[in-house]
């Protein structure tokens, strides 16, 4: 056996071999590439920023917009978005006793009533307001009508020209001498047309008297003090005061929509993010184990998954609630979370298992295995990056589903307990008044839609960016 002895010539530099420049770029790691590709996807980046903004909206929002989300203000029910309004300060004082004309008969003359062809009663004369009409009370009075047994009071938003346009039948007085009415029914600032008719106890007259009334926005002194709009001892009835703004309007109990949306986001995003994250994580691990090991373990694990799929979600949801000792009127959020994690993972598990089974047999995995790669390497280098697409798709579908599930459960009374808001419960409350005050439904629905859309687009972008197979195509 001879040995080669190196000479000095062996260590001399070579001559330049080629004129062509050497093309070298820094090795691009998997994650760096994914990040770069995500960055080039404007829709995904837009969604990402939208979600970040949403995060700020829920966390920083309530710090900046310090309106109590459950503070009712029955003065300002179902208001459209506004930037505040001026109101008249009033003293509520005693209820109005009304006007009873002394000496006037309460009921018609029986002899007159007995006539079959008696003439129709005339409309009450001199319909007028007493005191300044405002949103807390409109006081009306009129002159009594002979042979009247009572009066009917109507209210409309436009001027009535015919009987069918009198509007809402507010109420009646039960005596011919009672010639006043105080209206306080859900009054809003603006113009109303009041009409009064007389009735003889059997027939209501078709003659009506109408009055146009301009109603000013008002606020009782005590309410203003309670709400902190006035310091104690300040303010007098008749003063003007500026009411706080509601940039997104108010709901059916006069609660600030913006503040409710901010607080509602907490519930919705908590459930909407945490539940899918947890059960997708669990499902992925479960499916990966089943797919990777295969055989008996796989069969056993997947039968268990089949069993869980067969459980009815709603029924188990209710059982969890009962078993976890959540009483009526308490928030059932934790129960929803547990139920969703325990019942919704099999779909992910099945998908991941199928994917893993497929990848396990791929040439590059076999090659890696032949080269003696440890299982850890196989899983983290080959399996997970190749299944990430599937997992992310599942996740992006799971988040909207979870938000909707929470919404539905809140609606049937198994979710958040009032007055805690959640977007879902706000939507269902808004649905009832969709025609009259669409903003109550629109804003929470918009928030849900935006969130769901953002998650979907981001998921799309992430899938493209993380898909190892897409790398080769560039």
């Amino acid at each position, binding site marked *: 056996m001879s040995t080669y002895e190196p000479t000095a010539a062996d260590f001399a530099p070579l001559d330049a071999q080629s004129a062509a420049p050497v093309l070298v770029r820094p090795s691009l790691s998997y994650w760096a590439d994914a990040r770069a590709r995500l960055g080039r996807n404007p829709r995904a980046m837009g969604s990402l920023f939208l979600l970040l903004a949403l995060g700020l909206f829920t966390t920083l929002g309530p710090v900046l917009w310090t309106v109590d989300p459950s503070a009712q203000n029955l003065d300002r029910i179902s208001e459209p978005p506004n930037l505040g309004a001026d109101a008249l300060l009033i003293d509520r004082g005693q209820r109005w006793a009304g006007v009873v004309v002394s000496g006037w008969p309460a009921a018609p003359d029986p002899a007159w009533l007995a006539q079959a062809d008696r003439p129709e009663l005339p409309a009450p004369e001199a319909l007028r307001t007493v005191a300044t009409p405002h949103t807390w009370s409109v006081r009306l009075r009129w002159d009594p009508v002979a042979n009247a047994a009572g009066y009917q009071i109507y209210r409309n938003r436009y001027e009535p020209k015919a009987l069918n346009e009198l509007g809402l039948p*507010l109420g009646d007085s039960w005596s011919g001498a009672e010639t006043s009415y105080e209206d306080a*029914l859900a009054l809003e600032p603006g113009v109303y047309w009041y009409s009064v008719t007389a009735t003889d106890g059997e027939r209501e007259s078709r003659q009506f008297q109408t009055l146009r009334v301009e109603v000013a926005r008002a606020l009782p002194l005590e309410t203003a003090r309670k709400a902190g709009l006035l310091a104690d001892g300040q303010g007098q009835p008749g003063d003007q005061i500026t009411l706080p703004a509601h940039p997104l309007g108010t709901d059916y*109990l006069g609660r600030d929509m913006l503040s409710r949306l901010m607080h509602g986001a907490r519930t919705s995003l908590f459930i909407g993010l945490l539940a899918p994250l947890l059960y997708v994580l669990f499902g992925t691990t479960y499916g990966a184990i089943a797919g990777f090991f295969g055989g008996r373990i796989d069969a056993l694990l997947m039968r268990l998954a089949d069993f869980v799929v067969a459980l009815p979600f709603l029924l188990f949801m209710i059982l969890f609630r009962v078993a976890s000792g959540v009483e*009526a009127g308490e928030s059932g959020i934790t129960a929803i979370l547990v139920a969703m994690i325990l019942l919704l993972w099999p779909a992910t598990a099945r998908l991941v298992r199928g994917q893993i089974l497929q990848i396990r047999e791929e040439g590059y995995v076999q090659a890696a295995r032949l080269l003696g790669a440890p299982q850890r390497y196989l899983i983290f280098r080959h399996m997970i990056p190749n299944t990430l697409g599937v997992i992310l798709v599942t996740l992006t579908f799971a988040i909207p589903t979870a938000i909707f599930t929470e919404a539905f459960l809140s609606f049937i009374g198994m979710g958040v307990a009032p007055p805690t808001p959640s977007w879902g419960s706000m939507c269902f409350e808004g649905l009832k*008044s969709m025609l009259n005050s669409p903003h109550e439904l629109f804003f929470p629905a918009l928030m849900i839609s935006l969130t769901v859309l953002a998650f979907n687009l981001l998921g799309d972008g992430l899938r493209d960016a993380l898909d190892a197979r897409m790398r080769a195509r560039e």
Partner: protein
Amino acid sequence: MARKAASATRWLKLLGLLLGALAAPAWSAEGAVDFDARIIRMVLPQEPPQLDSSKATDQVSTRILGHVMEALTRFDAQGRLVPGVAERWEIRADGATFWLREDARWSDGSPVLARDFVFSWRNAVDPKTASEYAFILQGIENAEAISQGEAPVDSLGVSAPEPRRLEVRFSRAIAYFDKLVAFATFYPLKEDFYRARDGRYGADAEDMLFNGPFVIERWDHGARLEMAKNPHYWDRDKIYLNRIEFPYITADTNAALNLFKDGRIILAGLDSETMENALDQRWRIERFNDGSAWYIEFNHREGRLTQNWNLRRALALSFDTYELINRVIGTPGNLPGLSLYPSYLRGAEQRLLQEIPPPEPVTDWALARSHLAAAREDLGLAEAPELVLLTGNSPTANKQAEFLQTLWKEALGLTVRIDRQIFKQRLAKMTSGDFDLVAAGWGPDYLDPLTFGDLFASWNLNNRGRYANAELDACVRTAQNSVDAAVRVDAFGCIQRILLEDHAIIPTYERGQIYVIHPAVKGTIRRQTSPDPDLSRAWLEQP
């Protein structure tokens, strides 16, 4: 290719046929009123479970029965009691006598006789019939014992000494018996017909006999019900309509409003949402008092915090009924809750509430807080207690519950948990006493204040809070047993005073409803007891 085209044509033809079949009923659909044939059409909220008057409990059944049956007495359009099958009657402390009219007939032409009432009433108290309304006959001799199976059915204190004379014996005086007999359980039943049906009476149109202004001519279960004028009815000349048809059965109020809009039905109810829509459509909106009184009932059972008077007073003092009806409910027609008794009830001479005026409710948060402090001292509580408010699952109930929750939080710092339940579950929880406060309502069975007055007697099973007060019980007994109108009004006043002073309940409101009706239909009667709405004496006027 040709074959493919041929099959496509065939499919198109089939599709055309299918569309045609779907569209056909829409073209031939009936309008809300037919002036020439004197027909009106309406919607039924649900299918009547059955139409045997001795077993009927729900509003739909009693509404239909009210059109096809006639009792001894009935209420007219002004709510006055008028003769029905009975021509005249007499109420005494120990019993009553009814003289039946000669011309009252069944729809098969046979006369309506006193024995038909005897059979019907015995049938209602018979434990074998298991009528849920058997209790309404209590006060007639032996009725209670029979329904508990302790006496034979024919020992009921009712007899027919003459074909057209009905004798009733009371075990206690029933001053309002003439009003009571207008109720559905007291309708007559013809014995041989009833027995021949062998338990199927009231299950179908042909399994019934009618003595009212109308007969049921067609009853397609779950789909359609049609009534036609009864040619044998004694007062048939006063009945204008030839037919009342119910081509739609749905509880969906929006669907009903759309049917009204399309001119298919004559009447539809409104709520705060559809009200604005009706205003824009320029429909004449009507209002009526549906008879029910609503209140917050406290749980007076041992161990409940709400047993404490100071706590109850604190809750009552912070509540304002005007705020509730004007600013929370927001539909017209609701009246303030001032008393247990609704405003339409009549006393001895005038309206009951004019004779025993309830105090004007006081809202005073400062006073309420001092009572809460006293309650905490009484109960030895370091912090403000937490209470459970049991409520229904309707949007209105929900709105009110949330209003109360925030109100009590703001006024008293009390935490109230809302327990929202469907009707059956709420009833079960009310019966078992699983609540601190419950939002409850009561509609009258008959037009006497006693239907409300005895609600909180210690023995009444509808007294869900188990309120027990010996003085109140004594007043209820007086109201039950006396025939003297003035004495009874005093007793009702005593009941009202105790309930309000002791804060056994917080009256919240008296419910009113609004609806729209076809302008040509006149003489519709809305009332507090069944049948409502009553169209038996309605007529049409061409606009």
